[in-house]
């Protein structure tokens, strides 16, 4: 782990590839050209890693069987620095990020595309580790990566590796969730500790050392969300995963979308000790720090206890907590009760507090 902290790059000496990569230890311009080198990457890296029939047809488009109904589609680009961090890497982020966007929209995530923009000179071993992580994350989430693309840009551009994923899923029957659907009286729940991902990144960037290393919470939430929706479908009005800008930005967005006020109780926000300490040291507020494996739920009051219990029953939701509720007052605004008993408005984060965080 200290190796990871020092250089941000994992130890590849033990990595073994299903099929040997031929010839080149680093990415060259040709890998993005659609010719022999590009085909080699597909043959020897992407195909074996992602392994599914739709991909193996290698057509210009993947042809997919999807059950009738409403389709949800989402896309995200990932530019995190460093590429490898405690608890994950850009590949897992790219898969889980899009899976989560579909899941919080009430859809069952099914298929993903994966596009890479690579910098000339990028080590193939790192790409292989990223792709391996993506395969693992996809399998865990129950999605297939069915199409993709690779481009290469000259050395000095592109910062190693950028990834874009787009995903489609099928919206569950009878689901009516959306950021505009929160209602006065709703209870606000969060599925676990906040600020882990952002501070894991910061710990590498700042060379912070910890008694017990903060790890990114990067994870696919569709299983946990599925558990909740299977039981309490009608009671969940809004869901979102608070990534960039943290919990504060997400709650502000929903408050504005739904034209309601949101009040949270600061003392009830779950924050790991190390995250709190690191935030103190760096002058950051955990409510603005990114998460990659957490969801907030706006739930009808009568179902709040049930949903909380369902979350806590899931491995990813053990530290779920009730953090606030929705009011008809101060529409569009997020207000927090401090531990002192005073109130403060928590504005939407202005600008980028932590750049290149996901």
């Amino acid at each position, binding site marked *: 782990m200290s190796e990871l902290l020092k250089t941000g790059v994992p130890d590849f000496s033990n990595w073994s590839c299903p099929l040997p990569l031929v010839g080149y230890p680093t990415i060259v311009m040709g890998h993005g050209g659609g010719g022999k080198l590009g085909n080699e990457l597909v043959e020897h890296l992407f195909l074996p890693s992602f392994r599914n029939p739709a991909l193996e047809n290698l057509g210009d488009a993947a042809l997919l069987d999807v059950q009738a109904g409403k389709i949800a589609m989402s896309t995200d680009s990932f530019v995190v*620095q460093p590429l490898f961090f405690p608890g994950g890497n850009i590949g897992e982020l790219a898969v889980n990020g899009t899976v989560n966007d579909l899941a919080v929209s009430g859809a069952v995530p099914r298929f993903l595309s994966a596009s890479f923009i690579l910098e000339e000179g990028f080590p193939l071993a790192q790409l292989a580790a990223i792709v391996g992580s993506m395969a693992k994350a996809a399998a865990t989430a129950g999605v297939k990566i069915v199409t993709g693309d690779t481009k290469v840009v000259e050395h000095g551009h592109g*910062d190693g590796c950028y990834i874009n994923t787009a995903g489609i899923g099928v919206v569950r029957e009878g689901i009516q969730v959306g950021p505009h659907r929160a209602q006065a009286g709703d209870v606000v729940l969060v599925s676990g500790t906040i600020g882990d991902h952002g501070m894991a990144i910061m710990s590498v*960037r700042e060379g*912070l*050392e*910890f*008694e*017990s290393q903060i790890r990114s919470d990067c994870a696919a939430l569709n299983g946990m969300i599925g558990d909740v929706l299977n039981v309490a479908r009608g009671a969940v009005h809004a869901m979102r995963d608070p990534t960039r800008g943290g919990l504060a930005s997400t709650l502000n967005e929903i408050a504005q979308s739904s034209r309601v*006020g949101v*009040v949270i*109780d600061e003392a009830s926000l779950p924050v790991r*000790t*190390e995250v*709190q*300490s*690191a935030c*103190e*040291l*760096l*002058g*950051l507020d955990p409510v603005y720090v990114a998460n990659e494996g957490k969801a907030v739920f706006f739930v009808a009051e009568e179902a709040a206890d049930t949903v909380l219990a369902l979350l806590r029953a899931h491995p990813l939701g053990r530290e779920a907590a009730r953090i606030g509720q929705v*009011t008809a*007052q*101060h529409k569009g605004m997020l*207000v927090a*009760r401090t531990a002192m*008993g*005073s*109130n403060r408005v928590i504005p939407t984060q202005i*600008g*980028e*507090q*932590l*750049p*290149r965080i996901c």
Partner: protein
Amino acid sequence: MVLLPEYKVVAMCLAIPGKVEEISFNGLIRVGRVNFGGVVKNVCLDYVPEVEVGDYTIVHVGFAISKIDEETAKQTLEDFRTLGLLDEELASEEEAFARAAKAPQSRCPDGSCGEK
């Protein structure tokens, strides 16, 4: 790669208490490994020659500037805890806490957040 440094906001008076876990000399200055609630950093101890391993110190921009007197800290907290208790005539301490907690608090600017 150029990372925008604008997030590095360190308040000028921001001085944090930490526990000294190790002390060494790097050839120029006395260095302490200081633990701030789980985050560990190296800190210059030249201004606090009396600080030893196990002591708590206040650190500002990489320098320890004062030792925390733990006895005084305990006494201060004790004084805070008993503040106002004499005013509660026959109430137990728990009742006093509960009453204090329910006392009129500041409200949202438009008066809506007073009640939970």
